Every structure is written in structure tokens, then in C-alpha cells.
């Protein structure tokens, strides 16, 4: 039993940390420190830097540019990005669609899509959820009918994150409406410039534009953009979802938030003339989160250690623990940060604004913290809601 990272892994962490410190634009870091999403340009620039270094696609096979890292190294890499904080390689490209194409795609598809994906020459988005297919994803209704050398797609996707930036979308569509739910689904790649596609923004409660509705009206997708076999798209979907093994724990991101919270509450946020951190009730809430985060970190280590030895690619139900706890901790961090801001959390800033404090009423550190709190309620809903995670656990672990 060796519960520590080895010397090579610690050296790797140092290398990643130094690379980020040297290469990450300060403007990007500051924006993310303030709890805002990086702009499209920031994400693109950063991913190209990572790609030049050979680090943009940690999950991909070596022949398509993957660095051949162990799970522990991938974890360290992500943790360092989260703590910086720096943008992650765009998940739609690198974690979701890329690995699916590398696993199920034709040589032609790999050559055509993977290098551009890695370099973020194409921004991809995910067309899975529909108004009637949320937690019950296999209930999706968007139809694709083969006509000659095209599929004709009709239907609606929703919660499509950053579709407003996207050049391409990967889609789950129903190709056989007579088959059992999971057996009539196919995985298609679709150029967002194809006629018949309409993107409509959904503004979330904090005012941000992250997600969209995407409408398909007789959209023609060439048959060569089918990934894997027709009606076997559910295999791709399961593979994609199973790839997300420990990412949702986001231990590094929570540690970064707690570091910031404690800095603010120790110096800038006053309560009765004393730093808020000296209030025993507040300090206690922070400490409880720190303890839970430490336990989560060790749980992630356990998952990495067991996953490293597994040969099959089936999703590990232990990831449900990581998702549930990881999101609960992140949500609590966002809540405590908002509380630290007191009344100045109420300023309704524009989450899309370029600057960090466009209204200049609240202190810089306090600006927009309520928005982050509101926005982060999404975490226990997306990626398989925390209730779905409990269903998965009940079935997989408990045999209930």
C-alpha cells in the first residue's frame, strides 16, 4: 500500500505547474479567479498552447497526439489546471467526441476531425439532451432518416453548452423508431453551418449565456459523418459517459475556491470589525468543507489506483460517489463565497462582460459571487443528476 504520489509524479506536477505559471495569460487567470468563464478566445489560445506542448488531449491514443499519461498524471494535470486556475482543454473536443471518434470512427474520420479538434480549430458542442430526454437520455426523439447519401435530421436539442461558439455538433439521433429505446439510436457529426440549424440562447438564472436550444429542420448530414454503426450510437454514448471517470470530482477546483474564500474571509470580508474567518460559525462551515474535500481527494486516489489496473472500459460506479460529493462541495464553496461578500453579493453584473467588475459598485473580489452561486446549482443536475447517480449506485453497488 503506497498512498502517495511517487517521485516521478511529483516531478510531473512541478513541470505542469511551471508551464502554467509561464504560459497562462494573466488576463485569463484573473478572469477565472473572479469566478467567470473564460472567453472563447481565451479558451482557444490556451488550448493551442497546450496542443503545441503535446498536452491538449490527455485521454487520446498516442497516434492521435495523446501524451500516453497514466491516470495519475492525467489527474495531476487537471488538478493543476483547476488550481491555477486555467481553462481545461475543451471537454467536448478532447474528453467527449474525440475519444469516441478515436474508438469508433473510420480512419477517414480520424484524419479529418481529430487534429483540428486537438488544436481547437473546430469548436465542438454536444447534442444529447432534448426537451423530453433529460435524465432519460435514451428517450430522445430527434429523427434522422437516411435518404441517399444523407441523413435528414429533424428535431430539437437543448442545454447545448456553448453552441454559440461551435463549428460542429455531435448528435444522438433516432434512426430506428421501431427498435427498443437504446437500440435505434445513432451518433452523427454535423457541421453547424449546415442549412436548417437554428441556435437560440437560453439565459440561465444568473444572466449568463452558456446553454442553448438547437433546432434541426431538414438538416442534411452526409452518411460518412455517421460514427460507428447505424443504430449502435448508444454504445458511443455509453463509452463517452464512461470516459468521465474522475473529472467530476474537481478536487483542484474546490481547493482553489477554498483558498480564495479563506483569503477573502481572513482579510477583506469583515464581520463586526473582525475578519469573517474569525467567526466560529463561518470558520466551522469552511472547515467542514475542507474535511469533506480531503476525504474526496483520497477517494479519487482510490478510484485512480483501481482504475489503473482495470482492463475493461466499463464505467466505474465509484464515479457516482465522486460526482455527488464533488458537486456538493463545489456548490457549498460557491455559497460560502457569496456569503463572504455579504450585501455586495447582490450587484447584478453582466456575466458576459469582458472586464471583471463592469458596474464598479462592489469590491472586485465580491463582484458576481452570487451569480456563480446561482450558476453552480447546475452542477448537481448536469452529467447525470445526483439523483440519477444514486440510482446508478443502488443498482450497481447495492443490487437494489
Amino acid at each position, binding site marked *: 500500500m503506497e498512498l502517495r504520489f511517487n517521485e516521478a509524479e511529483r516531478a510531473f506536477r512541478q513541470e505542469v505547474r511551471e508551464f502554467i505559471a509561464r504560459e497562462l495569460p494573466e488576463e485569463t487567470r484573473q478572469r477565472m479567479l473572479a469566478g467567470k468563464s473564460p472567453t472563447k478566445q481565451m479558451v482557444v489560445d490556451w488550448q493551442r498552447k497546450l496542443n503545441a506542448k503535446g498536452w491538449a488531449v490527455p485521454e487520446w491514443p498516442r497516434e492521435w497526439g495523446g501524451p500516453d499519461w497514466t491516470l495519475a498524471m492525467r489527474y495531476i494535470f487537471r488538478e493543476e489546471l483547476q488550481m491555477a486556475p486555467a481553462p481545461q482543454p475543451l471537454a467536448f473536443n478532447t474528453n467527449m467526441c474525440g475519444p469516441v471518434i478515436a474508438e469508433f470512427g473510420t480512419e477517414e474520420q480520424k484524419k479529418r476531425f481529430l487534429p483540428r479538434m486537438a488544436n481547437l480549430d473546430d469548436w465542438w458542442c454536444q447534442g444529447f439532451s432534448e426537451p423530453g430526454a433529460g435524465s432519460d437520455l435514451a428517450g430522445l426523439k430527434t429523427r434522422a432518416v437516411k435518404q441517399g447519401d444523407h441523413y435528414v435530421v429533424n428535431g430539437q436539442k437543448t442545454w447545448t453548452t456553448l453552441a454559440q461558439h461551435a463549428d460542429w455538433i455531435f448528435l444522438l439521433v433516432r434512426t430506428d423508431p421501431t427498435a427498443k429505446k437504446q437500440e435505434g439510436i445513432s451518433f452523427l457529426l454535423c457541421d453547424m453551418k449546415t442549412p436548417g440549424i437554428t441556435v437560440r440562447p437560453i439565459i440561465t438564472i444568473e444572466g449568463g449565456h452558456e446553454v442553448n436550444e438547437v433546432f434541426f429542420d431538414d438538416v442534411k448530414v452526409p452518411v460518412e459523418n455517421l460514427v460507428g454503426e447505424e443504430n449502435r450510437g448508444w454504445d458511443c454514448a455509453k463509452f463517452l459517459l464512461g470516459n468521465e471517470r474522475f473529472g467530476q470530482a474537481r478536487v483542484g477546483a474546490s481547493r482553489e475556491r477554498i*483558498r480564495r474564500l479563506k483569503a477573502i474571509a481572513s482579510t477583506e470580508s469583515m464581520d463586526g470589525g473582525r475578519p469573517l474567518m474569525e467567526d*466560529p460559525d463561518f470558520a466551522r462551515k469552511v472547515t*467542514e468543507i475542507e474535511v469533506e474535500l*480531503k*476525504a474526496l481527494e*483520497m477517494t479519487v486516489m482510490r478510484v485512480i489506483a483501481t482504475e489503473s489496473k482495470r482492463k475493461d472500459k466499463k464505467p466505474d460506479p465509484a464515479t457516482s460517489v465522486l460526482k455527488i460529493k464533488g458537486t456538493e462541495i463545489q456548490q457549498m464553496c460557491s455559497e460560502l463565497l457569496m456569503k463572504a461578500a455579504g450585501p455586495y453579493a447582490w450587484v447584478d453584473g453582466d456575466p458576459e462582460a469582458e472586464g471583471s467588475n463592469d458596474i464598479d459598485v462592489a469590491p472586485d473580489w465580491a463582484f458576481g459571487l452570487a451569480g456563480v452561486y446561482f450558476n453552480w446549482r447546475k452542477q448537481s443536475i448536469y452529467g447525470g443528476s445526483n439523483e440519477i447517480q444514486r*440510482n446508478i449506485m443502488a443498482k450497481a453497488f*447495492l443490487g437494489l
Partner: protein
Amino acid sequence: MDFDLTEEQRLLQDSVARLLADKYGFEQRKAYMKSAEGWSREVWAQYAELGLLGLPFAEDEGGFGGGHVETMLVAEQLGKAIALEPWIPTVVIGGGFLRHGASAELRAELVPQIAAGDLMLAFAHTERQSRYDLHDVAATAKKDGSGWVLNGRKGMVIHGDSAGKLVVTARTAGGQRDAKGIGVFLVDAAGPGVTRRGYRTVDGQRAAEVELTDARAEAVLGNPEDGLPLVDQVVDETIVALAAEAVGCMQVAHDMTIDYMKTRKQFDRPIASFQALQHRAADMLVQLEQARSMSYYAAMGVEERDPVERRKNMASVKAQIGRSARFVGQQSIQLHGGIAMTMEYACGHYFKRLTVNDAMFGDADHWVRFLANNGGLVQAA
């Protein structure tokens, strides 16, 4: 990063599990509890045979040479059986004081007796007023010639009634709550000036109130002027065992609950088919896994050289284990329903041990407060 056990560790774990499967059925345990001492001499002798009683001592001193991982493995199995024997007081606590505070001569004399199962130890530390504060010591030790004479009262001395020797904390200098001036002494439990009143605790263990009236110490353990660091070290190592014991208890309470949910029928279907109960069971599993992670972390974190950081590590362990134990314990009762409220059903006994385990050397609230007062775990940016 590797959570696999070595071949030797696996053998150790399996042999303890086998012994307990054979000797610690629910009815057997009940019989041990009813016996005069409240635990089984026969099982104790078998612990000795397996090497469990010499586990942490060096091999050249008659021990097994086990480390914290071995302690964790054994304690988890004992937790699964809610074993009643004085293993933690004798081997982990008493053994810890001997390993870190006794002279080589004293260890040479005592370790073989402990390893053979002939000598039990108990930690006489808690006092009526001290609650969980390790530095709150009113009992006194006065120099008398070349030795020490002890006076005072100690309470809730776990397994104090069957111990052959007591490890006693007493003040050699300073005020009742001073960190400095605490000594640690070995006292013959049956010697003159020592009176003991034994009783049972709610979780089936034994404890004693101990009164010291001019009792002479047989030996000093560590520095009599400044013994608190030694106490801290041993308590931190004990937390490795307590955490693992709790994980063992939680595992069984959880497993029993799941099994019961599958067999118990209401409204013509197994109660396992109800989603509200499934989700609660999933939450129990989340808590159990978080606790197990922290039990592993305990075995690693106790090796930290800086005593302040080490104490923080162990505080975080106690905090998480205590929270998890409370949730898993309470919900195992709730999901069973009435049956788990009965003395005749094992689940409640796990709940009771978990409840006491949480409070030993400070409950989760105590350690969260400690961490909050000491800057927490994460450095401010």
C-alpha cells in the same frame, strides 16, 4: 499510488477475519459480554497466537513488526465483529506508550508478556472535567526519592478493570490545563493505592473509574516534565485504529441494511424497490466510502513528522469518520425499521459502537472546531 495489500498483509487480514467468523457470532459475542470480564480470554489467546498482540512491536523485542497499515487492517476486522477484547487499549495505546516512551529494558520485560496475552494495559487519562482536552490533567505526580507517587481520579478508563498495568497521566508541574508539566507513568493496577470500580459501557465494552491514593509508579514513560507530545503521538496513532474500527462497523451495518431491504416486504414488494430508501442507502455508501478513504489517509497521515501537521491530519480523519459513522449508524437503524431497535438484532450494537467510537478522544464536532481554530487544511491563497 497503490492501495493493494502485500501478500503478508492480505494473510494477516484473512486470518483475523477467519478467526472472528469462527469466534464472533452474535450469540457468542453476547455470551462474552455476559461473562465476568466482559470479553473472551479464549479469543484473546487466539489473538496472541495470530501475532495480533505483538503486532506493532519490533520483531527483535518479541513483536510482529507491523506498521500503521497492519494496525488498520486488524482494527477494521475487529470492528466488523464489534469485538470486545482490550486490543486497542493494550496493543495500540499501551503498546504505543511503550514503543515511544519506555526504556529498552522495560520493553524487553513487558512486550513478551503482552504478545503472549498475559498482560493487558489500559490508558488512565480522562478525568471528570477534562472531556476531550488531552492537556487537562488534575491528577498529580510527586517525586519521592527515585520514584513518583500519584494521586487523583481517572474516569472512563477503557478496559481499566482487567488491565494488569495502567498508563496514567499526572501533573508533575504547572496548572491543571497547562500543556507543560504532564508526566506519563506506568502503574501496577493491582498495587497499593489503586482502587478500581469496573462497569460496562453502552457499546458492550468495559471501563473503570480509578482512584489513585499515593500510588507508586513502576516506571516513567517519556519525559515526566513534558509528556504531552508523547500523549499526542500515541493518541494520533490510536486514531488510525479507531478510524478503521469504525469503517469495519459501518461496512457491516451497511451490508446488513442492504440485505434486509432485499428481503423485507411491505405493500407486497421488497422495500428495496422504493426509491426513497434506495437513495438513502446510496448516501450511506457515499459516507462509508468517504470514511474508508479517510481511514487509509489516517495510516499515511500519522507518519507526518511535524506534530502540528500530524494532528491536523488526524483531526480531519476523526471529523470525517465521526460524521460518516453518525449517518451510517442512524440510517442503518432507520432503514431497518423497528427490528433494529431490538437488543436481539445485531444492527443496533454496531450503531452503539459507532456512537462511542465517534466520541473516543473527541467527536467530530470537537475536531472540526480544533481544525477551525488552527487554520483548517487548505492554505489561504
